[in-house]
């Protein structure tokens, strides 16, 4: 009965918001993660320091605080007119997206750094020896290999990102968890609403895990990752 009428509509809207929020945040997080993860391994100290600062600062403060920071802390720094425009055009959504992306990006960068460090140092040295610049070595040799190695832990972070998106309800983003609570308010059917929300998250996470699993097999480098169950 939750799938029909008003409640079903709300769940669907919540699902769409959750997906939009997570997808955008994921793209930005992966970008930030790769950037910071790579910078932490480059042979140039100031860049490493910036990356270390980013990672340690953002992953060690709770996500909830970041949500409040981007929503309550950032807008007052902007001119009044810009603030008003933002507040009329979904400031909550963008604040939540940035909070989620920057926070997850810091976590992902550690995964990526681990991937890069697992590649023997000699590969980098060999790339430089054949005349590649550092940038080229990372872009053509190091990152393509590292990214293939880190699919399983990245799956983990991606799932976390999806589930963490529910924190956005604290700054009034009408995502999935928000809508399940809304249904509870209107119908007082708390258990049903929670069950529906849980099932949707479960299905979403299983989908992501499946897609990432496929990706892993599709791009595996023979000999580097040996999956017992590959096939």
């Amino acid at each position: 009965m939750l799938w029909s009428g008003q409640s079903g509509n709300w769940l669907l809207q919540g699902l769409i918001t959750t997906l939009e929020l997570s997808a955008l945040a994921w793209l930005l997080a992966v970008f930030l993660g790769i950037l910071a993860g790579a910078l932490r391994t480059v042979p140039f100290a100031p860049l490493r320091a910036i990356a270390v600062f980013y990672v340690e600062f953002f992953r060690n403060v709770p996500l909830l605080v970041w949500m409040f920071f981007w929503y309550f802390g950032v807008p007052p720094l902007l001119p009044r007119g810009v603030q008003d425009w933002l507040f009329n055009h979904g400031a909550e959504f963008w604040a939540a997206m940035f909070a989620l992306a920057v926070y997850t990006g810091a976590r992902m960068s550690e995964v990526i750094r681990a991937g890069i460090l697992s590649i023997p140092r000699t590969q980098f040295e060999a790339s430089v020896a054949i005349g590649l610049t550092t940038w080229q070595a990372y872009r053509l040799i190091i990152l393509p290999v590292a990214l293939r190695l880190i699919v399983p832990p990245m799956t983990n972070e991606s799932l976390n990102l999806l589930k963490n998106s529910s924190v956005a309800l604290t700054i009034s983003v009408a995502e999935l968890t928000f809508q399940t609570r809304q249904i509870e308010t209107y119908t007082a059917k708390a258990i049903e609403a929670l069950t529906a929300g849980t099932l949707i998250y479960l299905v979403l996470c299983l989908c992501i895990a499946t897609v990432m699993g496929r990706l892993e097999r599709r791009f595996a480098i023979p000999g580097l990752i040996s999956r017992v169950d590959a096939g």
Partner: protein
Amino acid sequence: MKKVLTLVLLLAVAAVVAAPAVAQEGTLDKIKRTGVLTIGTRTGSPPFAYVDKQNNWVGFTIDLVEQFVVPSISKEVGKPVKLEKKESTPPTRIPLLTSNAVDLIAGTMTDTPQRRESVDFSLTFFYTGAQLLVKHGSPIKSVNDLAGKRVAAQQGATNAKIIREKFPQVQLREFPDQPAAFQALVQGQVDAYTNDGIQLYGLKAKAPKPDDWDVVGDFYSEEPYGMAMRKGDAKFKAAVDAGLKQALESGKYFDVYEKWFGAKSEVPYPMTPQVKTYLLKQVGK
């Protein structure tokens, strides 16, 4: 194979039949066994229930429970009952109740027909209606001025629902708690904050500069506050109601009201004759 299936089916049926039998210990029996009445209440809703400057958990609703409901229940179970308080917010209160984590929701919960499908309510112990809190000098004077404006509400509150249904042009922003919603109003994320009038007066009184804020508009909803309990527990409901009834009949209720909402209190909220009539009508006076 067939035998196994039958066995599984039998077990499932047994579980379904047995589960309610185990869970159906009445609330009064539970209180008699444990000697404790657990209420779900608020920490940040002055003057109903809040933590004061001396770090005591106090308030109008808590006083009502302590002075009238607890004695009535003690009488019913035949032994003194201890009161235990737990934090419950609008999104968590019904789950807390249905999961037996608390026995009674005594905070600021509005008695609505939809909620009555899942929980039972005591007699009404307070009566208010939704209004708006705005910055002093704001052009917003009532709900009719809200078209296109950004309005904050509390998640799980009845007035958010009314705004959504009756004023669809309003850009509604829903926050989990009062402090976040008020912060959004202070910073200009929203143009107004809507909640039950008494809540807004409470917020205004607590604000660093109370004169910066105005409570505007007529009640655009009716919000009778009741204490909520698990559905179908007639004995427990009778005991809670008996306590409140005694308070109203003896007039002691109005002393407690005076303490929290009188002219000398922090949030003066004089009781209108209509509200008084409404409250007393419940006990046939």
